[in-house]
């Protein structure tokens, strides 16, 4: 079946330093859309980034991700982490035309001063 793997359960980074959250996937869909969701404490998950184009960088709120179908990856990065970035981050995929969204286990990002 389709799956999304986020290898880190917790990532701790010092404020101002770069951060990278890993996401790899397996899917049988020919055309897919990828997402990063962010969930702040006591809130609902919300879309942070979306991409369906291979090798194209997508940016939002200082975060960026590039879909690489050759390596089945969609890693999330930010050049300078902020304290307010502390949250739970989910990577997810959806087959175009199939409205079933598959989520990874999530990575908690903790930014420390």
């Amino acid at each position: 079946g389709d799956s999304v793997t986020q290898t880190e359960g917790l990532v701790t980074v010092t404020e101002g330093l770069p951060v990278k959250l890993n996401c790899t996937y397996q899917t049988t869909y020919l055309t897919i859309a990828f997402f990063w969701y962010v969930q702040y404490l006591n809130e609902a998950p919300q879309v942070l980034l979306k991409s369906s184009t291979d090798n194209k960088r997508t940016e939002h709120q200082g975060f960026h991700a590039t879909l690489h179908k050759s390596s089945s990856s969609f890693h999330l990065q930010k050049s300078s982490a902020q304290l307010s970035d502390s949250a739970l981050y989910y990577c997810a995929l959806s087959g175009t035309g199939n409205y079933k969204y598959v989520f990874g286990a999530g990575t908690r990002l903790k930014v420390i001063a």
Partner: protein
Amino acid sequence: EAAVTQSPRNKVTVTGGNVTLSCRQTNSHNYMYWYRQDTGHGLRLIHYSYGAGNLQIGDVPDGYKATRTTQEDFFLLLELASPSQTSLYFCASSDDIFFGHGTKLSVL
């Protein structure tokens, strides 16, 4: 503004109890979803629907029933609740999944 409203926000029941979680969307979306969120497992799909009267089985359906009565309303039913169903439940509607604020369910 797009909205997904869940009720109740918190629910406590006993093992074997009967629970109904409600979800209403005002987004005019066709698809609605029920997920459960557990530490270490992330968001797991229970059931989903693409319209009134339709139901699709998700990835963790055991112990759950669901019913979509209208375009707006999607219900999750636990007819014999068990402690393993203690979780945070999210309802969502497409596009790109718009989540409600969740229902925290505790089964004692």
